[in-house]
């Protein structure tokens, strides 16, 4: 959780220096739901994160250097500058990158876990959606398909109160999102998303069910988005005092530190040592990431397909030679023959 927050704080600094090329998405106040749930998986399992699950990716082995390079659109970033923010994956390390249309990854992870089932592999999948994505057709079709096929899949709804500016009251008429499990015939559980141990326990129960062959589970994690949809968002739609209250009373890191020192005999020095290690790691990562350059422009044409491996540069682009420039003409073009016909 500390690494997630410190890394995002570093990204804010880089964003203000205009080194982050696009938007910046924070998970401030939601770090526990991403980190606690990802820890419930084994190394061989696969998860698909959403925009506020940087913590889950870090648990799965994504590195701060990769995150920083990706945000800064560097040529040696995980997607070589093709995709934004935390949109990347690595099936070897066990995470598959999301796309922007919401709910789609539920369908994709249904297929990933269907494969685990068909091949009798002892592996489980975990997919995150925000509460807003439950309104999409893809969410519904994906979770229903996975439920019918009894895929080893855990679906986590992170209920952070807002989808961009839309509050829960305008997203659903259901009393709580976990009730949707009933309609799919699968177990549902709601947990305190800002209590990392509760998140871990709830996810672990669902992961164990999936691993036993008991199919899909739905978990609703109650949390709160303390920053806007992205850094540009001034959160004018949030009632006064709401953000402060969550920060003061329900910060997942503060709560976890209190438990570590209160119940588990960690000292303040132990906690400081973690914080210091994280700070050094992020400093070093920033130095490394800033040394990388932008991608070579021609790389944009590679790898749309396996075959053909590259798209052709268009003729009007400087340095390209195209059909029109070459002036292909039939033989005898522009001359008249004896009968006066042109060709």
């Amino acid at each position, binding site marked *: 959780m500390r690494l997630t927050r410190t890394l995002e704080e570093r990204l804010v600094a880089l964003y203000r220096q205009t080194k982050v090329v696009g938007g910046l998405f924070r998970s401030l106040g939601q770090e526990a739901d991403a980190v606690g749930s990802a820890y419930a998986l084994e190394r061989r399992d696969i998860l698909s994160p959403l925009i506020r699950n940087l913590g889950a990716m870090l648990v799965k082995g994504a590195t701060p250097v990769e995150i920083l390079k990706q945000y800064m659109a560097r040529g040696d970033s995980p*997607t070589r500058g*093709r*995709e934004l923010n935390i*949109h*990347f*994956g690595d*099936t070897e390390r066990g995470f*598959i*990158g999301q*796309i*922007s*249309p919401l709910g*789609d990854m*539920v*369908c*994709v*992870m*249904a*297929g*990933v*876990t*269907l*494969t*685990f089932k*068909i091949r009798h592999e002892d592996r489980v999948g975990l997919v995150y959606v925000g509460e807003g994505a439950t309104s999409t*057709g*893809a969410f519904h*079709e*994906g979770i*229903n*398909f*996975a439920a*019918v*096929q009894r895929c080893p899949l855990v679906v986590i709804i992170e209920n952070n109160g807002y989808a961009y500016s839309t509050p829960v009251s305008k997203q659903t008429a259901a009393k709580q999102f976990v009730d949707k499990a009933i309609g799919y015939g699968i177990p549902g559980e709601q947990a305190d998303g800002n209590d990392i141990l509760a998140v871990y326990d709830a996810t672990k129960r669902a992961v164990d069910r999936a691993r036993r062959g008991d199919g899909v589970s739905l978990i609703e994690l109650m949390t709160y988005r303390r920053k806007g949809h992205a850094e540009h968002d001034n959160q004018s739609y949030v009632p006064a005092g709401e953000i402060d209250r969550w920060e003061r009373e329900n910060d997942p890191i503060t709560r976890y530190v209190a438990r570590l020192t209160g119940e588990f005999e960690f000292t303040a020095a132990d906690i400081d040592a973690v914080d210091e290690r994280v700070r050094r790691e992020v400093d070093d990562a920033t130095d490394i990431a800033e040394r990388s350059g932008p991608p070579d422009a021609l790389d944009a044409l590679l*790898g*749309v*397909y*396996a*075959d*053909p491996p590259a*798209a052709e540069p268009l003729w009007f682009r400087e340095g390209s030679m195209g*059909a*029109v420039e070459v002036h*292909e*003409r*039939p033989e005898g*073009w522009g001359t008249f023959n004896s009968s006066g016909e042109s060709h």
Partner: protein
Amino acid sequence: MAEITYLEAIREALFEEMERDVNVMCLGEDIGAYGGAFKVTEGLLDKFGENRVIDSPISEIAIVGAAAGAAHMGMRPVVEMQFIDFMANAYDMLTNYVATARYRAFLPCPMVVRGPSGGYVRGGPFHSQNPEAGFIHTPGLKVVYPSTADDAKGLMKAAIRDDDCVLFFEHKYLYRRIKAEMPNGDHVVPIGKARIAREGRDLSIITYAATVWKALEAADQLEKEDGLSLQILDLRSLAPLDDDAIQATVRKTNRVLIVHEDTRTGGLAGEITARINERSFAWLDAPVLRVTAHDVPLPYAPALEDYVLPQTADIVRAARTLAAY
């Protein structure tokens, strides 16, 4: 060897590929016990079992998305759209997710989305469409649309073996109306290569799918009545297009008619015309003309459908106009 229909040729390709590679699986609505709405997948469940022939809920988004997820994990799913019209439901998944997977995430996505397409069958607005143009426009997808039984088999095998997503359009009017003898052995037709369906000198028709047969009828009539020699190019692959074959036929006959069953505006004929203009303008003796469907949804009544869709008589008339230009 006995002749088999276009539909049987597709089924034979599915059988052979599933036997060859255990990673090939089928996914779709009513494809298992029932054998599919048109019976293309009949017998597959008995032979390969329900782990490899999966009856899905009515969820085009989910089956395309799940196929992509399975493809990332090393499977080669073949998804059936019960009617190709319903591919519109999965448009987001195909264009935003599947088409970009390799480029943005280096994720392999070898899968086929296949289904009955096209009109001339009194199917009405939602069982007759030719939605290929929207997908040809999307980098990352390949699109094939065979007109003969042997190409249907050979292209299906190529599509299943391709390392990217191939949309495989099957013309339902041709399913049981045409037959061919299958070539011996492992018959694979390469994606991206057109086929000359008829050699000729005076005028080229560039077309694909069911209108190949209408063009052939028109060519016979024009040869008999007008003494015209028509060359017919069957594109077979719509993405990637066989640009060299297109330019070659233009440069041979100098007059070109493009025929497709899809509607006119934004249809593939416009793209082909642009390519001819760019590369072979100097060889043209006449403007490139198009015979296409009218820009309306496809109606049900025979009198209406026949009016909207291109007919052999339309092709004859357009070809005469071109020849006289």
